[in-house]
């Protein structure tokens, strides 16, 4: 149920983001979801792609600082209060969320949200016990 996310260190200078997407494009790797967190002089690009390991090796070969991070992809009802409901289930268990971002695509009528938490296994267990769907890596990559 763990999804591999690519995390890429990028300096805030022109062309770096374009270069990453070019490399992926040239190698027929499709981006499923992305988010950028930035400071004044660098940023971290977080990507969910269809072939994470291949993408990791390609970026590494191009001297990017890149790592694979374990995240979870959760189905959230696409209606007001949907996300709040999911977060509420985690709250009593003190699961700390580092960051989250949403997918553009949907797997069904629900929205898809990527969660980065410290205790991945525990979070998955709590969510599934509460009837919330956590997608498998393979399901996410082949969206």
């Amino acid at each position: 149920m763990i999804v591999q996310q690519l995390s890429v260190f990028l300096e805030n200078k022109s062309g770096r983001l374009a270069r990453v997407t070019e490399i992926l494009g040239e190698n027929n790797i499709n981006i499923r979801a992305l988010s950028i967190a930035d400071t004044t002089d660098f940023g971290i690009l977080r990507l969910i792609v269809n072939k994470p390991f291949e993408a990791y090796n390609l970026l590494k070969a191009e001297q990017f600082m890149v790592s694979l991070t374990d995240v979870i992809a959760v189905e959230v009802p696409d209606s007001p209060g949907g996300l709040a409901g999911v977060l509420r289930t985690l709250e009593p268990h003190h699961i700390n969320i580092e960051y989250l971002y949403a997918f553009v695509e949907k797997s069904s009528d629900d929205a898809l949200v990527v969660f980065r938490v410290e205790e991945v296994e525990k979070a998955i267990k709590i969510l599934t016990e509460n009837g919330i769907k956590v997608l498998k890596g393979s399901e996410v990559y082949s969206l």
Partner: protein
Amino acid sequence: MTKTRDELKELQLARLKSLVKRVYERVPFYRKKLDAIGFTPEKLKSLADIKHLPFTTKQDLRDNYPFGLFAVGQEELVRIHASSGTTGKPTVVGYTKNDIDLWSDLMARSLQNAGVTARDVVHNAYGYGLFTGGLGFHYGAERLGATVVPISGGNSKRQLMLLEDFGATILTCTPSYALHLAEEMVELGISRERLKLRMGIFGAEPWSEELRAKIEEKLKIKAIDVYGLSEIMGPGVAMECQEQKGLHINEDHFLPEIIDPETGEVLPEGEQGELVITTLTKEGIPLLRYRTRDITTLNPEPCACGNNLIRMERVTGRSDDMLIIRGVNVFPSQIETVLLSLGYTEPHYMIVVDKKGALDQLEVWVELSEQFFSDEIKRLEQWEKKVAQELYTVLNINAKVRLVEPRTIPRSEGKAKRIWDKRDLK
């Protein structure tokens, strides 16, 4: 060295007397200077009298470009070297046949003292040419009877191939290039076991004890510090022994003093200041009290290696490399020490100084170490903060630390350029 310190001082005095007489007679520049202060060679009675003699500076060499300070005619010269002038004309030095012989002998002596033997293969990656590094090591190692590979600088892949194929045991180059080779080795997947290297002799730029530890760990060799400058001779003015606790100066030929760089006052033994050298026996371009701009300390205590030549401490910086930021003296080596002691970052860095309004701004650009990469912004900001805090403790000024992408700071194949002072351009 079998001479006692007293015998050595006697020899230095005799040589100094003869030197002063020689430059007074042969170099108009010195005659004018000595006449101006009413100093005649006969007035020199003791080594302490040297403090009455005038200094020679790099600017003096430039002002007398190219051959104005030479003490012999061109027919007696067998070689010319020059140091790269970052601004304007280079400084030029000339060697007689005796000078080259002496240089080779002193280099051989220092190399031997450092543990190099006739059975060694010396991979000499110092640049060959007008720069004294390449040829200085070449002649010295050859004089010792070692096998020299005159590879010169550049083309790291080829360097590594030949290091392996020729079975080099000694690597000689700048410390920053040694580090670069170590990285390339990993990059190209060359295992350390394939190399026979056991020692490296690194110099031509100031480096820190921490960088030494890093090179020794990465290349699994003993790293020896060497000191020299073309104005005095080239490499081999001083070199460490196996103890690695200071560089033995070849003081029977190069008389060292430590002065206060501001006042020119000679400082008591053991105090830190600018190194000044008088070339006691050089013929081509003998120099009185040459101001090296290098900051160090002299240590006359006996060395465990048995060699009683005086030791100078590792050069911690140059008085002209010194940056003055908001009135505070900053040496690049201090920054290097901080970065290496924390270990979050690679030892490649760039110091950028700029002006924001009236205020100097210090930025340190540094490559994050792979193992410390985290996709959490706050973690990375913590590293930046920690480095900045540590820099503040050492330098007492606020520096902005900026993490940059791996391998984006230029690797040098010669002397590392680590300072970008944008204030100069404004």
